[in-house]
């Protein structure tokens, strides 16, 4: 789905800023256990997502998101439901 790809691409750009240098970023990396985002950085990422896509990310979706791919899917869904 083209929109998914676009969302993912923009997310990855934000992630690059938040991730530790030299991390092996890829769309299926586990954001917390592999990439090591702590709770503050997770909130930073959500803020980026909200501002970038002009959406409001509801709290309840966090528990089922582990990877950039999954986050992009969730954002896509939010955009479609708007």
């Amino acid at each position, binding site marked *: 789905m083209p929109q998914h790809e676009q969302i993912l691409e923009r997310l990855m750009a934000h992630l690059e800023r938040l991730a530790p240098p030299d*991390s092996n970023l890829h769309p299926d990396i586990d954001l*917390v256990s592999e990439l090591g985002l*702590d*709770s503050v950085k*997770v909130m*930073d990422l959500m803020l980026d997502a*909200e501002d970038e896509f002009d959406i*409001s990310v509801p709290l309840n979706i966090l*528990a*089922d998101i582990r990877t950039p791919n999954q986050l992009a899917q969730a954002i896509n869904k939010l955009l479609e439901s708007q």
Partner: protein
Amino acid sequence: MTELYITKTSTRNPLPQRLADFTTLAEALDYAAQGVTGYNFHDGRGRLIAPLRYAELRQRALAAAYRLCRLGLKRGDKVAIIADTSPLFMEIFYGCQYAGFVPVPLPINMSLGNHASYVERLARLLRSCEARVAIAPAEMQSFLTEAGSEFELLFSGDGEAFHRLDANVQPLEPSRPDELAYLQYTSGSTGFPRGVMIDQATVMANLRGIVTHGLGVRPDDRCVSWLPFYHDMGLVGFVLGPMASQLSVDYLGAREFAMRPMQWLALLSRNRGTIAFAPPFGYDICARRLRSGDLERLDLSSWRVAGVGAEPVRTDVLERFAECFAPAGFDSQAFLPCYGLAECSLAVSFAPLGQGIAVERIDRAHLEHHAHARPASACGDMAVTRFVNCGHALPGHDIVIRDQQGQPLPERAVGRVTVRGPSVMSGYFQNPEKTSKVLRDGWLDTGDLGYLTPEGLFITGRHRDLIFVNGRNIWPEDLEHLAGRCQGIRHGDVVAFTAAAEDEEAVVMLVQCHLSDAQRRRDLVNELTSLIRSDFGVACRVVLLPPRSLPRTSSGKLSRSEACRRYLQDGGESLGLAPPAASLTGTGAP
């Protein structure tokens, strides 16, 4: 669709102010409902989404009480509710007050990818509190349904489903002063929940102390808060306290604050807030996120009480905040350090109002060797530790510092902080064993270490072994329990603690094990660090030690404090760890 124009509740109230001189929360709300003040809920961008006057809240709470009665709840039954910052929470919480039921606030999940562990945590809490009803905001309902599937609940659903329930309009009997006001689960021990039992008379006593002695509340005060309702400071300090003194409150969700902390200050600026509290973490994140241009939009000159609590007070963080926000009118004299814990409803002591942070410089060597807080001389280059004055106990309460045997200690001697008074809990719910450990002859052993001077209480060590990271409290038991999931690690092989180095807090886990193969040791360290990351969202330094090297107490239990002391002393060498260069440690960086 009609568009409704909504406005926030006013600060001014024609109703004469009464400062929490009520016998129960229901009686307090009955009075507040005669005025025009109330709660105001805002979204993440600071827009008002729902004002809720106390008058309207009272009506909705009564309706909730009728519905709960109709469900067949018995007096004293527990009503669990996921404590989102929303009008629904207020309605259910106060609904319980009007019908003699006991609300139990449950935590919200704010971590990524932890669906299973969040549901597990909710299930443990539901079991521990013996919930008969479980209510959640619509978007969190699925977690609660999953968690509650094995319990016989009279009702489990979201706000809408709850509102569809029939109501029995019947005479209500609100909770009496000697009945429970709520059960408060202490800051998140997941595996070993402790439900603090707080009676109506108990919480009212604390509220009186807070709003009169602690904050000196006045009719023109207005509160602003992002503190979650499942924490004592959020619930008692910023839900119950303002209501019991008929003040208006502006709320921002905790997650919204974590994302856009400046909204907290913007809200305070806009609505001329006067009272707002945060743990040091909250002040820290504001100072860190300050961007150019933010200051021009802020006017913090109305902020007369900037409370600091819930975590050890870090003076460097507060000094930075004060410096950053002075141009926006923030007055550092507004800082109000205080000390408290859920087991004492909320507050034990407050520093004097309007004095800011008062720090004592203590001779560190003398403190370490003699457990005595001797002020450092002004000159000389001796090592110095700084402690913050948390003031005197609330009226009617006593603080005594005791040694390990429970004997009172003189001024400036460091020992266990114990508290007595009308705000102390009656115990942990269904847990006489844990209760008897902390409550003896009316004295609450807080588990914190500190000393007293004629100026007040100084806290030197944290709540038992609680770990503080990014504004969260983590129980070492939970980390240790998690480690037990790894193959080859038994429960008694692990201790976790924080090692404070300068102003950074590092979480450390020491594991004793038999593994000798280097690759398998590396795998274990990586497995543990990533498990801890995904379940707790914190980085942890995992250190492997030879078998039988962790220190134990005289009764044979693992001693976290001794392990921590030795770890800090020589980097673990006395624990059997090879010198740093040769040792295998890891923080799990990929």
